[in-house]
């Protein structure tokens, strides 16, 4: 009986594995969290990819070939993402992989892309290590965690420090314990404050588990240290609870700032009961906001999805455009050759997008990394809107500081 069952299952599988073979589209594999705690991020990227792909397909696709998005649920779990990626590559025959939302997932998927010689374009996973492994098939268009704080560091040095007129400012840093949080801490915030020891004193620097319910003990500890600046690296839910509980314990500081992720999402303002008013957030910017195309895109987005897009939406949208642009250089029909052509095409790409210029370089130990230092900005929550305030050229208003 064992054999009967096995053989029938085998047969079924053979059928399944044949189904999706050689259709006349460019298939793009999107491992994304569709269930589990990351599900609402997966949803954002799905909307962004779909919008861009629909627009391109409406114009006839790339060289007459339409784009097809193939989604796989990763639940934001790296191991599951690895098997999803393997499936997308070997069974769906996707020409490229895209995104994955979380750094943990991308860190695990990148070696799979290399093993299978499939280009993997990152538009949000930010952990620096991913593009520091000499992996020639991984491309990243957006800033890394180390770059996330570039604009913030500039802002603190040029605006906050001179204004305080103190010899040394005290700083408390709280960050979520996962690949993203560790990355921002290790490559961005902590080295910055250590490097400028004469100006800043890092009095608290602690990580927390992202599912924690009660942050008050930690916040009381921070309050006791009476910092001038509080820096938070959080996702959404933890960011909401932190903001609420900061008010509750009465922790006050000259400046509260997040580093992208949760602090750049509209939800954090509303769902924390406006507790993040005046908070800064430093991270990938929201695009070339003074550019006419960006404005056009933004109003189209609001019309279609009824909410204001942030960094995730623009990143996802641009990622598809970048792939589509690079796909113009793909001529052959065999998917293995197509992947090589796409890779070469991505390497040569130099494209102006609504997110900024995308060009993949090798520098300072990075491979195929867009020099996206400039694509970061400090934004601030003012009356329920997250507006960019620094650097000057991206500013939508003056910082309320």
């Amino acid at each position, binding site marked *: 009986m064992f054999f009967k069952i096995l053989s029938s299952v085998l047969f079924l599988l053979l059928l399944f594995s044949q189904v999706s073979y050689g259709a006349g589209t460019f298939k793009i594999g999107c491992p994304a969290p569709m*269930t*589990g705690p990351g*599900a*609402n991020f997966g949803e954002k990227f799905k909307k962004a990819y779909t919008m861009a792909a629909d627009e391109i397909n409406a114009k006839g696709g790339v060289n007459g070939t339409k784009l097809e998005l193939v989604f796989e649920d990763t639940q934001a779990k790296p191991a599951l993402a690895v098997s999803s990626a393997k499936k997308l590559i070997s069974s769906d025959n996707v020409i490229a992989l895209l995104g994955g939302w979380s750094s943990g997932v991308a860190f695990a998927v990148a070696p799979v892309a290399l093993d299978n010689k499939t280009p993997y374009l990152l538009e949000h996973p930010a952990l620096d290590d991913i593009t520091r492994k000499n992996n020639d098939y991984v491309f990243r268009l957006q800033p890394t965690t180390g770059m996330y704080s570039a604009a913030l560091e500039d802002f603190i040095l040029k605006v906050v420090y001179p204004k305080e007129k103190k010899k040394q400012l005290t700083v408390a840093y709280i960050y979520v314990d996962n690949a993203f949080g560790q990355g921002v801490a290790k490559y961005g915030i902590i080295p910055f404050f250590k490097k400028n020891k004469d100006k800043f004193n890092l009095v608290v620097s602690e990580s927390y588990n992202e599912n*924690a319910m009660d942050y008050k*003990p930690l916040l009381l500890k921070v309050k006791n240290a009476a910092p001038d600046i509080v820096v938070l690296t959080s996702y959404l839910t933890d960011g*909401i*609870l932190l903001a609420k*509980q900061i008010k509750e*314990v009465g922790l006050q500081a000259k400046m509260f700032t997040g580093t992208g992720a949760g602090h750049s999402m509209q939800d954090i303002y509303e769902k924390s009961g406006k507790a993040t008013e005046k908070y800064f957030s430093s991270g990938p910017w929201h695009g070339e906001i003074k550019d006419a195309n960006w404005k056009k895109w933004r109003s189209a987005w609001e019309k279609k999805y009824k909410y204001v897009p942030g960094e995730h939406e623009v990143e996802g949208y641009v990622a598809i455009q970048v792939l589509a642009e690079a796909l113009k250089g793909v001529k052959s029909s065999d998917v293995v050759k197509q992947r090589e052509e796409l890779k070469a095409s991505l390497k040569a790409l130099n494209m102006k997008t609504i997110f900024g210029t995308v060009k993949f370089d090798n520098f300072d130990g990075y491979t195929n990394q867009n020099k996206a230092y400039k694509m970061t900005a400090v934004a601030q929550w003012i009356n329920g809107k997250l507006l960019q305030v620094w650097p000057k050229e991206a500013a939508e208003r003056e910082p309320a500081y």
Partner: protein
Amino acid sequence: MITSIIINGILIGLIYALLAIGLTVIFGVMRIINMFHGEAVMLGMYAAFVLFDKFGISPYISVFLTAPIFFVLGSIIYKFLIDPIPAREREITSLIITLGISFIFATSAMYIWSADYRTVTLPFSQDVMVFIKTRIGYPALISSCMSAVMIVGFYLFMSKTYMGRAIRATELDKDTASVMGVNVKWISIATFGIGVVLAAMAGGILSPIFYIYPFVGSNFVIKAFTIVVLGGMGSVTGALVGGIILGVAEALASTFLEYSMKDIMAFILFLGILLFKPSGILGGRTRL
């Protein structure tokens, strides 16, 4: 700072205790571990959210309005899915059935309300009172106080009413209770319903100070289990004491050690109790 930390620890501990009571009651009477306890909490949170969002009813009131619905839900689940299983296999099979139900609830919630995070933001959500130099937010204060009131209320219910005594009699000895004229089957069904109601009420009360999403239940389950073991399975006072001990221990650990040590603390307590005093801090299971 130390008083603030302890006071906050007690307040969160009261909520932990309420989270655990539904679990401990079901376990005490029927020797069943309800694996969808966390999802019942989640449904309670969504019920509070919907009533607040659509009709502006405060969660502190709506928990009482939705209680009958959850009672019926729990009773039906027990009557049709758990009760018919032969007693000998019930302990193990019920684990698996309730686990299955937890998946069904979580995914259904996802289809109904999507994966978005929700919060209940009360008008006074930013107000704070000061008590012995400790700042306490009103929502946190009210939630904790309501937890305390409900725990006391439930204690009185169990010790003073006929129903409560019948439940305890069943807990002690099914056969004797049955001889004494207690309808053991109905008591079991009702107890399961009550357990689910308590979980859902805990969810409602928690909703103003936490966030809501379909898989939020798993955040509470481990805490609830820890408290149940800490306090002794089936004991209401045990759950109260266990909850407060856990709340304070976590608060102290996260202040004086690293914050990330907080969660390990719960398990050290858990394993320590299992090792040295397996019947729980307060001792035997006959305790209320």
